[in-house]
């Protein structure tokens, strides 16, 4: 029964969405098609605001006259834009784009703007009910931003410590992803047997559901039952001198959480880089290598003067993406350390952001924090891409 009910619920929802899309298309079709009719303005102003009020009224705080005036003004502006600016041009592409971009606007752009709004107000556990009922929040100016830099997002680490840790985390991970991926891709690019099988096996960490992969790896770092410590124990038993070198089982999860997370994430991330680089390697025509052989180039010279420069256009976007992904990676750290009583020693900016919001319920604080992180990431990406463009022009 419950299954039937859930199916019914979702089917209704999809029908609702289709209806919404249909209404949206109808709305735009009207504005594209009939912009030059005499009755365009009167009809639009009479019908649309009333319709909008009927549909969204309850959602936006009751069927008030004030709201109707807002809708009226909005419709007047939109109708005028269609009549004097758009004039029915490019109807088909805009109608095709409308559903997707309205979706993006509602669920990507609006949340983003809402985040900025939150960061200048004070939403926390004590004010959330007030907000839910009245939609009002106390304005606090840039207080939240000041707090981001002066107080700890969690309970002990400071913003700057998190920043340093994030940069270290990002750099280490991306470095090992690229190095490991490149090495494996070079090996796989040889004409060897079972290449397909190897390739399949090597992408398994990427292919597994991340939750399973991370939790499984977390288990392997368990102090008693984890594979890593079992092997280390057996090694030190077999070769006691290793203990003197400081090698032995350790409490990975509580004493070295960041190292653990990094190792797990490196394991997770190498396959993607490997596959991208392998694709790039396979696209390099073998005639370059033949020519280099005739010119008498050694293996390392070929690597340096042919492979690396030719693979760069493929690598750069992948590395950029990889950097952004690693910088934003909450999953690994949260899944390893996020359980109750988890440590803060492995947190990077984004995971602290998530915990600040949902473990500590400091919503506005975390919004301000998010804006700071976004600005930082934006700055890094722009300089990065700028360097990429410059490198492109060099060639």
């Amino acid at each position, binding site marked *: 029964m419950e299954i039937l009910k859930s199916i019914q619920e979702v089917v209704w929802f999809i029908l609702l969405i289709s209806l919404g899309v249909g209404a949206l298309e109808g709305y735009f079709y009207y504005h594209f098609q009939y912009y030059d009719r005499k009755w365009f303005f009167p009809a639009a102003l009479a019908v649309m605001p009333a319709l909008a009020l009927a549909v969204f009224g309850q959602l936006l705080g009751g069927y008030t006259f004030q709201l109707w005036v807002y809708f009226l003004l909005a419709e007047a502006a939109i109708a005028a834009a269609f009549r004097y600016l758009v004039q029915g041009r490019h109807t088909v*592409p805009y109608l095709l784009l409308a559903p997707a971009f309205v979706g993006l606007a509602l669920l*990507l752009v609006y949340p983003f703007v809402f985040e900025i709004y*939150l960061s200048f107000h004070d939403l926390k556990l004590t004010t959330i009910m007030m907000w*839910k009922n009245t939609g009002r929040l106390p304005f606090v100016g840039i207080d939240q931003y000041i707090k981001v830099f002066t107080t700890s997002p969690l309970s002990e680490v400071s913003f700057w410590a998190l920043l340093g840790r994030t940069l270290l985390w990002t750099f280490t991970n991306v470095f090992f992803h690229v190095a490991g991926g490149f090495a*494996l891709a070079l090996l796989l690019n040889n004409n060897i047997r079972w290449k397909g099988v190897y390739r399949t096996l090597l992408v398994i960490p990427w292919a597994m559901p991340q939750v399973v992969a991370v939790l499984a790896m977390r288990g392997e770092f368990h102090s008693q039952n984890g*594979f890593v410590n079992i092997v280390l124990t057996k090694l030190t038993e077999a070769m006691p001198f290793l203990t003197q070198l400081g090698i032995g089982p350790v409490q990975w999860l509580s004493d070295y959480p960041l190292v653990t997370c990094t190792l797990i994430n490196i394991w997770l991330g190498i396959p993607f880089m490997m*596959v991208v680089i392998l694709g790039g390697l396979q696209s390099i025509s073998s005639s370059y290598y033949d020519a280099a052989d005739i010119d008498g180039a050694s293996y390392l010279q070929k690597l340096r003067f042919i492979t690396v420069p030719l693979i760069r256009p493929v690598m750069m976007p992948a590395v950029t993406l990889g950097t952004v992904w690693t910088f934003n990676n909450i999953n690994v750290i949260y899944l390893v350390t996020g359980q109750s009583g988890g440590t803060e020693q492995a947190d990077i900016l984004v995971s602290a952001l998530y915990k600040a919001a949902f473990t500590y319920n400091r919503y506005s604080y975390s919004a301000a924090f998010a804006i700071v992180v976004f600005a930082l990431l934006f700055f890094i990406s722009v300089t990065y891409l700028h360097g990429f463009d410059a490198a492109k022009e060099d060639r």
Partner: protein
Amino acid sequence: MNKERLSIERKKQLKFFLIHAVIIISAAICVYPLLRIFSISLRPGDKLFSTDLSLVPAGATFTAYASLLKDTMFLRWLWNSLIITLATSFIGVSLASTAAYAFSRFRFPGKKAGLILLLSSQMIPAGMLILPLFLMIMKLNLMNTYLGMIIAYSVSSLPFSIWILKGYYDTIPRSLEEAALVDGTSQVGAFWRIILPLSTPALSIAFLFNFTTAWNEYLVARVVLFSAKQYTWTLGLFELQGQYITQWGMFAAGSMLVTIPVLCVFLYSSKWLISGLTLGSVKG
């Protein structure tokens, strides 16, 4: 002369041996955790703490699987995940397929800006949008519901899907649609009768991408769903894996059950996913 050739042969053999050795070790590191989960899932309940490293443990049983299905709501979690994921993928692919067509075939003001918006949306930290989405869902009274989850997920893969589909549409010659126009379809009819049927490979890849993203999602589910009945499997497994070591076997069994199908689907489609990834990023 002969000797020299022999030594060259030798070197070659050695080289290939080394390559195989390194790759096999790497492959082992990649696969081993999965095998370990498998092995743990077979352990009898009293041996879960064992430090045994053998793959098929002594006294292997399927009791963990049985108790997972019987004593927990695992099937219910799978069902929740499935329904949320199917709905999101359906919505995501439908929206992407038409938007990508507009980007592929038409010239209109704002085209470049739209494409840049799609690309730059990939830069927004996922963690950043969770909070406002969470608040929106709360305000709409959709906490702990399928609909809340579907709303939160539905556009997350949209930019990527649009990129993949646009790349694929670009490879379909325009003359096909022109022929259809001459034959008597409208522009939209040509899209529906010619382009969409031809794009089934790309559509299924976009669908799979949407599907795997939503299927494997954890962080949004964590904040939107709070009753065990509504959990997706990711939340459920995380709970199982929690501090109660007794459930370690069930965690392993559940992991195996969700991983195997995902793995098959992924390996089947990985070639496509990658070409989509590189296509999108290189062109951008």
